[in-house]
């Protein structure tokens, strides 16, 4: 039995999503900018997908800018605001645990003369609205805080931060919702969010499609200029088939949420319980204030996380070391370090990430395999070393 527990890295596309892609790519291939009938058909599909997605996200169609994915949307939000509003101020607030597609553009901006405050997090992996309030300055143009952390699943207090920012109308609020979509609801209006990022392949859509929500009235300098598509904000021939597929994936994901969120929460609680019963593991995901699909734990010292991943693979169980983007090189998890678990534990983090397709019956065999892998690898390495 194959058990895929790496849904935060990427998900398997829903079959209906692949079908939608195939149909649109083969039969409605024209360029939506073309004036002829075939172009108009493609344009209509694009418009319908935009309207459907907007309705599901409770925003206006004119507020959606399609991108090639989450990384582009995050880069666009951060640099787009920085270039557009740099005369107003050059200070940005974010957290120490953002995805690299937020953190790295911030570093780039620092080199170009902007100032960035990186807020630390508590042991539960969360920042507080008070921290944001204290860091705010007259020249703060942007606050960027992720909704759900991709490594440990901590859910940030977006609504409280929004309330603080309501008193600072000149500071824009960006939220990376890549891990939260379809798993943790968010009221965009009540939270006062100006920009948010979505990536299709994290909810069983296709890679190469994502979007940035840009609230009406917010202006951004484009990252990719040219033919003037997406209301001049993002040029390039639209990937209509993948966008239609994203609309379909979002609808199915939200339906699954309605039907199965209770079950997913229970599943996670059971997972946490089963893992907590293994004495040599340290659980890094807090029981409260965390998303229903991500569990992070650290292996006992002496076991290399990548060796552990390969050992589990022998039983067809697929998990991940920290986040996928940085898992080729072993470095301590940035999020775990920020949570203060110590260097050693931060180097031995393992992430389990669920989808609505995971089942209870998987827990027992998977946990048994985890225990066995720990046992095997501890024997190999001569058991627990003296790392912290």
């Amino acid at each position, binding site marked *: 039995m194959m058990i895929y527990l*790496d849904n935060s890295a990427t998900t398997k596309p829903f079959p209906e999503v692949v079908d939608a892609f195939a149909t649109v790519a083969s039969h409605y291939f024209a360029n939506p900018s073309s*004036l*002829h*009938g075939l*172009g108009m058909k493609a344009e209509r599909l694009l418009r319908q997908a935009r309207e459907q997605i907007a309705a599901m996200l409770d925003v206006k169609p004119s507020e959606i800018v399609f991108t090639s994915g989450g990384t582009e949307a995050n*880069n666009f939000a951060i640099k787009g605001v920085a270039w557009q509003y740099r005369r107003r101020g050059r200070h940005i607030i974010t957290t120490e645990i953002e995805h*690299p597609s937020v953190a790295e553009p911030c570093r780039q901006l620092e080199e170009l003369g902007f100032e960035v405050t990186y807020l630390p997090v508590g042991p539960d992996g969360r920042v507080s609205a008070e921290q944001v309030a204290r860091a705010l300055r007259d020249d703060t143009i942007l606050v960027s805080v992720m909704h759900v952390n991709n490594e440990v699943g901590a859910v940030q207090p977006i609504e409280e931060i929004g309330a603080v920012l309501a008193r600072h109308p000149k500071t824009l609020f960006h939220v990376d919702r890549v891990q939260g979509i379809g798993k943790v609801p968010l009221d965009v209006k009540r939270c006062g969010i100006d920009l948010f990022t979505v990536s299709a392949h994290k909810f069983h859509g296709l890679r190469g499609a994502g979007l940035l929500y840009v609230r009406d009235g917010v202006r951004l300098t484009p990252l990719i200029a*040219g033919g003037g598509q997406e209301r001049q904000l993002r040029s390039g021939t639209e990937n209509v088939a993948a966008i239609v597929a994203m609309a379909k994936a979002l609808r199915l994901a939200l339906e699954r949420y309605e039907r199965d969120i209770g079950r997913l929460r229970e599943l996670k609680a059971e997972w946490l319980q089963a893992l907590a019963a293994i004495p040599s593991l340290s659980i890094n995901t807090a029981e409260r204030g965390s998303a229903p699909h991500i569990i992070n734990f650290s292996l006992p010292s002496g076991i290399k996380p990548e060796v552990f991943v390969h050992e589990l693979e022998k039983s067809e169980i697929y998990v991940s070391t920290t986040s996928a983007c940085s898992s080729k090189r072993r470095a301590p998890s940035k999020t775990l370090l920020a949570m203060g678990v110590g260097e050693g534990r931060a180097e031995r983090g393992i992430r389990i990430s669920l989808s609505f397709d995971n089942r209870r019956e998987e827990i027992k065999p998977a946990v048994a395999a985890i225990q066995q892998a720990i046992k095997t690898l501890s024997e190999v390495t001569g058991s627990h070393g003296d790392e912290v």
Partner: protein
Amino acid sequence: MERIYLDHAATSPIHPDVAAGMIQSMTEQFGNPSSIHYFGRQSRRALDEARSAIARSLGAKETEIVFTSGGTEADNFALIGTAMANRERGRHLITTAIEHHAVLRACEHLQKQGFDVTYLPVDEHGRVSVEDVKAALRDDTILVSIMFANNEVGTIQPIREIGALLRDHPAYFHTDAVQAYGLIPIDVNEYGIDLLSLSSHKINGPKGSGALYVRGTVRITPLLFGGEQERKRRAGTENVPGIIGLARAVEIAERTREEKRKQYAAWREAMLTIFRSSGLDFIVNGSEDGLPHIFNVAFPGTNVESLLVNLDLAGIAASSGSACTAGSIDPSHVLVAMCGNESERIRSSVRFSFGLGNTTEQIERAAEETVKIVKRLTKR
């Protein structure tokens, strides 16, 4: 009524084998190439194979290919990325008046950042002169960006000569090969090209996929920062199905290149013959030896909007070749650069572009319909 699609330069239908490969990849190789487990490794292998296919097609090294979301991103990345990384060396760029907007708008962005851009003119066939490039070169020129072949009129630029000229100058040479790639064999070393943009959906691959060739010695700043994908030059989870689709499309394009070139040339000739024998007043825009799939024609006395509407009613999808905003057609900047603001050609030209799925019967019918429509529109 059978619809006849003659707008392959705007975008082309996906080849069935390409679609099949992508669908297989979506269902079987859905792993993230950065993941270290089996699914990740399987995706990584597919990615590596696709990369070497693209590299081979250009005579490049695998490490010199950066996958992007398409031609527009590749152009923006090439221009803004090299300008930002080399701004200490100089702040001057050279390009042409007939580039795609993906290049022109990136240049405008750079001008706002304090860069100086020279836009070279073209002759009435849409060709830049190597002499003009030479004359425009300065000590502080860091990049010359000249498209391989134009998307509206198909004119091929003297890339080899410009590449040779730049061998003795530190400026990098970028070419937008979005329309040429696949139909013209290109070896980046032979041509002296340092950066080259390509786009998958113009060669029967999927939309949302493209690449930038970046010579190993070129200094370039990423456009997208984040994860360490594409050797830190382009962050973002790789669109593996899209990249596999591109690689398949390239393989098919190379295999069918000669046959297609002959076929398109014959179709162009067939249209010309029908136009001539009908006694129609027309002028071919571009040059005789341009890209074989692009056929741009002016019909004096007509207006492009009514031409296109009437063609569409007759089931023929063609194009003005220029960007359109809210249903109206701006005069093409390419035709303006070729024939001037006053020329009637800028308002009466249609681009027919050939590709997969077209037949000789379709081409002949399209030409005959065009004749009827033009005659009707020019009847006083």
